[in-house]
Each structure stands twice: as structure tokens, then as C-alpha cells.
């Protein structure tokens, strides 16, 4: 018999996991919004950031969270460079397809480079507080998971404020909604799209640091992330930020709850089942609008 406390524990863990998924999926949504590209390398950059946090900790002995001031600007610059130098130069007619292949090849290069430089050994950051946990209404939650969630939630809030409260955010949203009209009112859509891409990659830096806090990392780990993330953005409807956030929360919690009867391995299939069910019932996703239908 499954006890109520266990279910509650799973719900809490599901929410914490869903927060991280939502942050990463919002990055993917951003790329899709500004460029109509699907960025397979997103989770490879996530693992890269986790490795950088681990390396930073090993070299300096400081808390891995302090690597954020380095990795976030670095990833932002990387994202801008990737958009300006690679993705914007693909043929527009076949860009969506070819961008998938291009970012896929970037993911392979990152995975291979990580394996070459740091070897395939599983790594984990030893933290003084990694064993600590809080008692929350009967559920035990590891402190590192709370920190990771707080990071993700904070980053989402900043992203939201940037998108809604700043001049750049308005330009970015205009570029997403109607690039030609945005150009007509004087927005340099090419440059804005580059910055949008940088913002998306910055979410991978934050997510990667959060991931490094409480999981064991290895180079091919990104395949474990990209599947669920891709499923989330399709279920939520490509291009819909709210839709992906809801899908991330729902699927994260579903996986957490299914772990009780099925175990960790089989619980992961919920993402793929949700993906195929969505395609069978509503191919444009549950919150996708006009945009998602075409892609």
C-alpha cells in the first residue's frame, strides 16, 4: 500500500524537477520563437555547463554556484555567435530541418569533446550540504534540490521580467510575433534574434549549474535530457511559453509519481508516451497556436 506521505513526497519532488524542466524548455521555446529552429544541442550545453561548474569547483574549491558569473555571460556570447555565424546562414527554405541537423552535430561535438577532455568517468561535486535535507510537512527534501529549484524559478522570473518590462523584451516579442512588421517599426530583427538566442543558451548555463549540484554527470547524459525536453515542447505546443511551462510541470510530476509503482527507468517512458499521444490526438500540441501547426 502506497502511503500518503510517499505520494506527497513525490509531488514535492515532481514540482522541483518540473521547475528545472520548465526553465530549460523555456530556452528551447525562445530559440523556436525567434528562429523557428529546434535546438538539439540545448541539453548538451546543459551538461557542458554542469561540467564547467564541476571543473570550477575542483580547481578553486569554491561553491559551484559562483561559476555562474562566468558561465552565464560565456553561454550568452556563445548563443549570439551561434545564431549569427551558423544558423542565420542556413538556407531559409530548409532552415528548420537543417538547423536540427546542425545543432545535432554540435551536440555530438560537445559530447565527444567532454569525453575526450574529462574522460567518460562519472563525476559528482562533493558539497558540504549535499546530504542536508529539510522536513517540509512530512516530506523530506534535499537542500540542493531546493537550491536548484530556486535558481530555476529565479531565472524564469528574470526572463519573464526581461521579456515584459524592458525595451529589448518588447523588441524580442515583436520579432517573434511578426518579424516583417517589427522591421517596419525599426527593430533590427537579425540582431534581436541573436540576443534572443543568447538568452536561451544562458538558461542552459543556469540549468546546468543547478543540475551539477545534485546529480552525477557524464558526457552522454544529455540524451537523457533532450528526449523529455523535446517531448515537453511538443506536448506544450511549439512556441508557447506558458504551454511548455505547464507541460513541464505536469509531466515532471507524472514521472515523479509513476516512479513509485514502476521504478525510475520505466517512469521515463511517460514523456515519450505523452509525445506520441499528443501527436495522435492533437499534433499542434495542447497550447500551441497558429505557429505550431506549420512545424
Amino acid at each position: 500500500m502506497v502511503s500518503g506521505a510517499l505520494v506527497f513526497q513525490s509531488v514535492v519532488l515532481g514540482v522541483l524537477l518540473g521547475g528545472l524542466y520548465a526553465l530549460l524548455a523555456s530556452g528551447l521555446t525562445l530559440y523556436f520563437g525567434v528562429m523557428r529552429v529546434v535546438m538539439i544541442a540545448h541539453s548538451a550545453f546543459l551538461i557542458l555547463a554542469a561540467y564547467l561548474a564541476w571543473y570550477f569547483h575542483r580547481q578553486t574549491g569554491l561553491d559551484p554556484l559562483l561559476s555562474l558569473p562566468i558561465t552565464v555571460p560565456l553561454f550568452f556570447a556563445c548563443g549570439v555567435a551561434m545564431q549569427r555565424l551558423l544558423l542565420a546562414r542556413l538556407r531559409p527554405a530548409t532552415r528548420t530541418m537543417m538547423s536540427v541537423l546542425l545543432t545535432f552535430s554540435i551536440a555530438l561535438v560537445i559530447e565527444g569533446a567532454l569525453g575526450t577532455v574529462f574522460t567518460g568517468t562519472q563525476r559528482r561535486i562533493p558539497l558540504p550540504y549535499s546530504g542536508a535535507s529539510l522536513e517540509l510537512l512530512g516530506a523530506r527534501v534535499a537542500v540542493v534540490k531546493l537550491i536548484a529549484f530556486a535558481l530555476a524559478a529565479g531565472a524564469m522570473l528574470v526572463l519573464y521580467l526581461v521579456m515584459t518590462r524592458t525595451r529589448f523584451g518588447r523588441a524580442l516579442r515583436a520579432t517573434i510575433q511578426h518579424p516583417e512588421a517589427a522591421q517596419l517599426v525599426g527593430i533590427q530583427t537579425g540582431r534581436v534574434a541573436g540576443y534572443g538566442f543568447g538568452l536561451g543558451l544562458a538558461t542552459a548555463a543556469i540549468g546546468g549549474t543547478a543540475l551539477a549540484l545534485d546529480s552525477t554527470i557524464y558526457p552522454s547524459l544529455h540524451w537523457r535530457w533532450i528526449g523529455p525536453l523535446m517531448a515537453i515542447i511538443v506536448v506544450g505546443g511549439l512556441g508557447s511559453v506558458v504551454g511548455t511551462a505547464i507541460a513541464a510541470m505536469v509531466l515532471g510530476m507524472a514521472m515523479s509519481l509513476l516512479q513509485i509503482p514502476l521504478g525510475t527507468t520505466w517512469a521515463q517512458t511517460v514523456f515519450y508516451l505523452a509525445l506520441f499521444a499528443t501527436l495522435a490526438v492533437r499534433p499542434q500540441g495542447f497550447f500551441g497556436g497558429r505557429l505550431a501547426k506549420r512545424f
Partner: protein
Amino acid sequence: MRSGSEPRSGPTPRPIVRLAAIAVGAALILAFPAGVDNPYMLTVGIGILNYAVLATAWNFVGGFTGYISLGHGALSGLGAYGTALLVTAAGLPSFVALVVAAALVGVLAIPIGAAALRVRGASFVIVSIALVLILLLVFQSWASLTGGSRGLVVPRPFPELRRAEHHLVFYFLFAGLLAVALAAWWLIDRSRFGLGLKAIREDEDKSEALGIPTFTYKLVVFVISATLTALGGGLYALWFGDLDPVFQFSILTGSTMVLMALLGGVRHLFGPLLGALVVGAGLEYGKLAYGDTPLHLVITGGLLGVVVMVMPDGVIPALSSLFRRWFGSREASIREVTAAELLATRDDTTEVGR
């Protein structure tokens, strides 16, 4: 539909020359085992032929319809495991098992294709990746049936043959399968069905408006492609004799198929074969020179990136346009380039609003 890159139109060599070239190529493939003296080279040859079969099978979907699938590794893995399990668990004779397994994968491809082909572009690629990841999960976890990570041993179909003879037989079996796949591609390429598929590649909405049953066409060609891929995977299982989910359901298998087909040129009958020759030989050399290090990921990824950025139409069109520039007779532009040129006159994000 004008399209200068098709083999039949444009300033292509005369049929006699083409036939002679094909005959020479076939003779080279058939004479290869007699020309090499050590069994290692023969296994390299089998590996390349296997790649060529898979890449050509992939090209039924990728080349005709333009739907890029990264998940064909899953179909070849299903063919391999299907064949192996039918031999070991059901006790069927090896080659009966191969055909039955391929037919089963073909049947299974109907619901998979029906789900995946409802969406276009990016979503289709996502679904194809998901297919590999989910099957890897299932085959690793379901250890009671598949042996899990310990692997699954497939009994050899000809126990009385010595190792070298075993390789020789399978070399010709793979060559035969390649010939079947190429012939099927050629037939479809010349048919009304193929014309419909190419119309889907160029503009799916317009071709649907013109009355082409786009969904049925895509599904049929997907099933053909899946069956051939499964045959390739199953034959590999019988030849190699040992299966591991990590290698059978690897995203890398699918991406190598895409790399080979793209490198050779997806619109050409022999494009994937050419790509398989180059990439297969390169991978084999890399394994010899650097061992099984993660560096091969960097090389595969880097090469795929370069092909996508520099020559997305493949080597054959790139070389033939160079050839034509040197020897006169300008090529009639293909639609895709014209559209690209049209769009290139505007800013790079404008196509979004269409």
C-alpha cells in the same frame, strides 16, 4: 516540375555511358573480395555495404519527401533484434526469421509513421529521435527477453562454414540487398508515385491542393524504407552474431545514415552509396588510428556540421555544378535554390511571418 538536379533531366551523360559506369561499379563491388587477401579488409567491405544499404533505405524517406529522420537506427535495431529473437526464442530458420522480422517492422512502421508523419519539419525529427530513445530504454530494461546490456547472441546461419567463408557469403548477401534497395529506389524515382513524393518535398501544401494523397504517399514510402532498413539490420544481426542495445538503438547509427546520404546527395540514386563509401572508410580508418575514443563523436559531428553548412545538397551536385561551370552549359536552377535566392534578398528572419 523542372528540376535540373534530377538524374534524368539536364545535361547528363548518355544512357550507354551511364550503363557502362554502373556495370563497372557493380563489377568493382563484386570483385572486391577476390582482390583483398586478408579477412579484415573483407569485414570493412561488409561494414561499408551495410552502411550503404541503411543509407539507401533512409533515402526513401529523406530523399523523396525531404523528411529527415534521425530515428532510422531504431528501425534497423528492431530488425536486428526481431531476427535474433525469432531465431533464438521462436526457433525459426535464420533467413525465414530475417524476412518475417522485416515484415513485422514494416507492419509496426504503419502506426509509427502515422503518428510521426502527421507533423512536419522539426516535430518529425523530434519524434524520430524519441523513437530511438524510447526503444533503447525498453530494450535495455526488458532484460528477460533481450538479454539487456549483457547482449544477445545470435546463432550463425551456416555453422559448417569457416570464418572467412562466412564473411564472403555475407559480403554477397549485403551486395544483393543493396542492389534490391537501389533498384527499388530507381523504380520509385521514375514512377508517378515518386513524382508525387518529390512534389511533397518541394511544397506539401501545394501538392495536397493538386490532389496528391500526401499522407498515404508518405506513409507508404515510410513503410518501404522501414522494411529495407530492418532487412539491413537483421542481416547485420545474422552476420555479426552479437547484439547490444546501446549499439543497436544508438542515435549515432541514425545520424551516420543521414550524414552519408547528405554527403553523397539525397536526390541521387547513388548518393547514399557514395557517402557510405567515404564515411564508412573514414570511420574505419578512425577506429584503426585512434581506437574507440570519444573523438569519433567529434569527427562525425564536425563532418555533419560542415556538410550541412557548406554543401547541403551533397557531393554529387556540388561536383557536377563545378563540372558544368568548367565545361559550359549552365544548369537550370532547381526550385529550392530559387526560393532561397528570393528569400535571401530579404532579411534572414522574414520567412517566419509567411
